[in-house]
């Protein structure tokens, strides 16, 4: 977990004026009227998985906050380990690291591409290269185990 990012989020949240512009802009509020988006900065009990990542909250915030990014920081925090959404994400991540795609792009997809008049995707090469890349990624991140610089 990136504690620095979480701490930065708390500090950033202190700038929030609680004006409600983010909630008004959020499409999720259409189906969850009680949801208050800026509460992501308060955190306790806030569900960060209810976000469609449209960036509308960030685009209307008068003080330049980005609640959407904060939700993603929260998703990556330990608090949400073993939630249903996190388990689903874990399955997708395994596919991504094994095949290079979240969806099962393969022979059938290439048949459809050929039918449509497109050249095939090099699925086997992608699968073999991504495994090598994942190994290198793990090795380098182990050596320099700090987050991305801004």
């Amino acid at each position: 977990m990136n504690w620095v990012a979480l701490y930065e989020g708390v500090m950033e949240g202190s700038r929030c004026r609680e004006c409600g512009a983010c909630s008004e802009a959020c499409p999720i509020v259409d189906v969850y009227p009680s949801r208050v988006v800026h509460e992501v900065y308060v955190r306790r009990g806030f569900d960060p998985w209810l976000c469609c990542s449209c960036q509308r909250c960030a685009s209307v915030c008068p003080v330049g906050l980005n609640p959407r990014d904060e939700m993603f920081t929260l998703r990556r925090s330990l608090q949400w380990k073993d939630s249903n959404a996190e388990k689903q994400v874990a399955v997708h991540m395994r596919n991504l690291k094994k095949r290079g795609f979240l969806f099962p792009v393969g022979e059938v997809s290439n048949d459809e591409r050929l039918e449509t008049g497109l050249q095939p995707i090099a699925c086997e090469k992608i699968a073999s290269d991504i495994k090598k890349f994942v190994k290198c990624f793990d090795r380098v991140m182990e050596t320099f185990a700090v987050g991305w610089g801004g």
Partner: protein
Amino acid sequence: MTACIFPGCLVAYRFPEYEKSASLVLDALGVHQVFVDCFTCCGSQVAESADDMFLSALGARNLAIAQAHGVDNVICLCGSCTYELLCARERMGNPFNLARVNEMLKPEGLFYDVRKPLHVKHILEVLDALPGRLEELCINKIRIGAAVQEPCNAMRPVHLHPALEGRCSLLHGITSWSGAECVPFEFESRCCGGTMLAFDEAVGMDLASLRYHALEKCGAQVVVTACPNCHSVYYVYPRAVDKTYGRAGSRLPSAIFLTQLLGLSMGMSFSEMGLERHMDRKRLARLFG
């Protein structure tokens, strides 16, 4: 300008007709393209929810692959891909991040060179920059009513799209060049909600259902999309939502990709645009004559 299309996984998996029609439209506009067969997926919000380090490294790797093919413009078909690749490019502006990623890329013989200009744009931004040429090529004006669904991350967040600051719609204007009349659709700029379907299908379906009600009432004959996530909501999910909500076979306007509409307007054929694969192909054939 040498460009390549970055299809992303949803287009590669489900919507090859979007890639094909986009490529033909770009060809007609004189955009020189090379085909890259080894891009991975962008990682999207799924990887961003789990491991943002891996996400950025993966994005930078895709950018390095583009550079290895001599490309200076990466054209994305999906809002999420545009966003994630732009974020990765931004992060590689930090020399420490860049050095680490290039160390990861070394065994594959790849190198991401930040000194070489590499633009990442959603196809809407590319088309929006060529209005005269596009309007000139759209010779068959298609007189239909169209609802449009703006892809969120093609324009937002603003700091990644400085050239588009102050613009609230791209798809609306480009759609009208085809001759289609854009009818008011309540959710046009309010997100399709498609990414929710990956994390919480029930919430995604609630969001979709609201959009379907509005679409049924808006009087459009087609709903124009420019992102595979939006297209999934209007093309793949209506039947599932009908089933869940016990609705009896709603008749929503047919979903069509912007590039398919533009291609038809440019005089390209129904089959060249991949529309013979469309579930509503009979209805669309009648509509487009």
